[in-house]
């Protein structure tokens, strides 16, 4: 390796040997230091990777990740030591911290990618027009075939009804808290919203089950499931909407009030439009969160093998309970269908996210 010089990376501010324009002070200004050339980290990385492969080749792979861990550690130590030797302590610490931050980022991202890839590969094996348009009616669990349309429609209805109830209540509650609320009432609302955030989802299901189904107000149905989901959505919507409304600058409210605009119109025309993209994102997050809920649905609507479009009567299928049902049947064909259901659920949530981003972008405040 060539000894790196400052000229390799930085344009020299003061040419080495030249006399920098120093004031009376006799010490020369030191603005340049030795830096590693750009290719060094790549070379070290390559070396570390080679070491990892070597470890794998020699067969010391008791833990599947051992080569990766060794390569990572090798890079971390090598780059820090090299940097310490050539660049000095501050740059060495910088390289160490940078490496750690990137490692944390990769480690955080790895499970997500892993899940996505696994679900996609396993799910795609059963994806077919028949799987998307068929139901499980008269399909033997041992046989291949069948579909999830009934489950998809059920999820759509349950989540849709839940959103229809939870969004207006949640957004209005948040507006109350931010724009009008003061004193004890708003404190207690805020407190109970926090408590609600922590309610385990099965407890929400249990509550609907004991309060509405056992008492005969509702039967096990999509509507009962939607009510359980509403309980879970509400705190998320209230909290996110509240956060978004609170970051709307007070100057805008005052600016509008000072024009002689009544408060309700200030909220409707200035505050909400300014916060709308965040509110929509929050609503979509809440929808996505409950779309994957399983436990409360098992208590409130249980399972169904066929399409039931009436939310008020009879059990309804849904994507999460479809997955649960198929997995619990244990046959190869059923487990494959469960993966297909998982892929469909992820795609559904992904579409919701993408939609939310688009809507948020469309509504967000524009500068030029």
């Amino acid at each position, binding site marked *: 390796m060539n000894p790196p010089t400052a000229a390799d990376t930085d344009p020299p501010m003061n040419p080495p040997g030249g006399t920098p324009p120093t004031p009376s002070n006799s010490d020369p200004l030191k603005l340049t230091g030795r830096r590693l050339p750009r290719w060094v980290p790549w070379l070290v990385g390559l070396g570390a990777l080679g070491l990892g492969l070597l470890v794998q080749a020699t067969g010391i792979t008791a833990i599947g990740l051992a080569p990766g861990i060794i390569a990572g550690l090798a890079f971390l130590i090598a780059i820090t030591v090299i940097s310490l030797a050539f660049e000095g302590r501050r740059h060495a610490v910088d390289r160490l911290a940078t490496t750690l931050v990137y490692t944390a980022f990769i480690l955080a991202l790895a499970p997500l990618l892993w899940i996505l890839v696994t679900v996609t590969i396993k799910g795609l094996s059963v994806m077919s027009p028949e799987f998307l348009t068929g139901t499980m009616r008269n399909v033997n669990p041992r046989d291949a075939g069948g579909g999830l349309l009934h489950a998809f429609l059920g999820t759509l209805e349950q989540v849709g009804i839940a959103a229809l109830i939870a969004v207006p209540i949640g957004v209005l509650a948040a507006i109350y808290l931010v724009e009008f609320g*003061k004193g004890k009432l708003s404190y207690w609302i805020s407190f109970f919203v926090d408590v609600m955030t922590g309610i385990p989802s099965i407890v929400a299901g249990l509550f609907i089950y004991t309060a509405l189904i056992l008492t005969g107000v509702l039967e096990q149905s999509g509507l009962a499931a939607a009510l359980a989901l509403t309980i879970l959505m509400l705190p998320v919507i209230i909290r996110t909407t509240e956060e978004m409304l609170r970051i709307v*600058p007070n*100057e*805008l*409210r*005052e*600016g*509008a*009030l*000072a*024009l*002689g*605009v*009544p408060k309700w*119109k*200030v909220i409707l*025309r*200035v505050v909400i*439009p*300014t916060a*709308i993209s965040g509110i929509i994102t929050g609503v979509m997050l809440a929808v996505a969160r409950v779309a994957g809920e399983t436990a409360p649905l098992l208590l409130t609507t249980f399972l169904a093998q066929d399409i039931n479009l009436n939310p008020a009567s009879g059990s309804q299928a849904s994507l999460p309970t479809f997955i649960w049902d198929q997995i619990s049947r244990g046959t190869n064909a059923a487990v494959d269908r469960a993966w297909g259901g998982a892929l469909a659920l992820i795609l559904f949530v992904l579409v919701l996210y993408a939609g939310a981003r688009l809507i948020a972008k469309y*509504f967000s*405040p*524009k*500068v*030029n």
Partner: protein
Amino acid sequence: MSKQIDIKDLDIYYGDFLAVEGVNLSVKANSVMSFIGPSGCGKSTVLRSINRMHEVIPGAYTTGEILLDGEDIYGPNVDPVLVRRTIGMVFQRPNPFPTMSIYENVIAGLKLEKDKKRKQSMDDVVEESLRGANLWEEVKDRLNKPGAGLSGGQQQRLCIARAIAVEPQVLLMDEPCSALDPISTLAIEDLIRELKDRYTIIIVTHNMQQASRVSDNTAFFNLAGIGQPGHLIETGPTQEIFTRPTNQQTEDYVSGRFG
């Protein structure tokens, strides 16, 4: 068109805290009055109470009278919304509505009110207001661009256009130039002199040169110490306040001996 303001025995509170005490002051119609004084002396607080923006802050209230051509704006049955339509306000930092275009910003006060007003007359209001704020030539080709995309000085003039679009009688300005560069400041000061023909203007400023350049009368506020209420010390024609103040505190302040 414009109206006279008479403030009588005005006390202003933030909750239990008496912020400004015993203000008595008259502002003649079609004149420019400037409020000067050290930070925290209550200039902005008095200004905000003149269009009932002070009470927007939780716990804040006032006692005493503020008369607009003889009518108490704090009287019973007075609607603060109507007061604010009559007495417009421009803030220290330009605050155009970020979701609205330049056009929509100008008519924000109207659009929110008279939805049925026709497109043509709306266009007229926009042009007239922007001309009134000396901004028309700069933005006439991009009225549908976002107001937040303008420079700071243009944004402030947009806020002035927005304020005069609702046809107020009085215009309150809370340090309108403190966030602007000298050229934008000059533009706004020129504008204030033009607007004087149509409005009664009260301007809060920390810049004494500005006060002497734009205002006919000046009111000097001061406070005895931290935690003490602010008082109106002296008021009079700007020339006299700056050259022959009667009060020692005023003289110290305008001559730069404190504050």
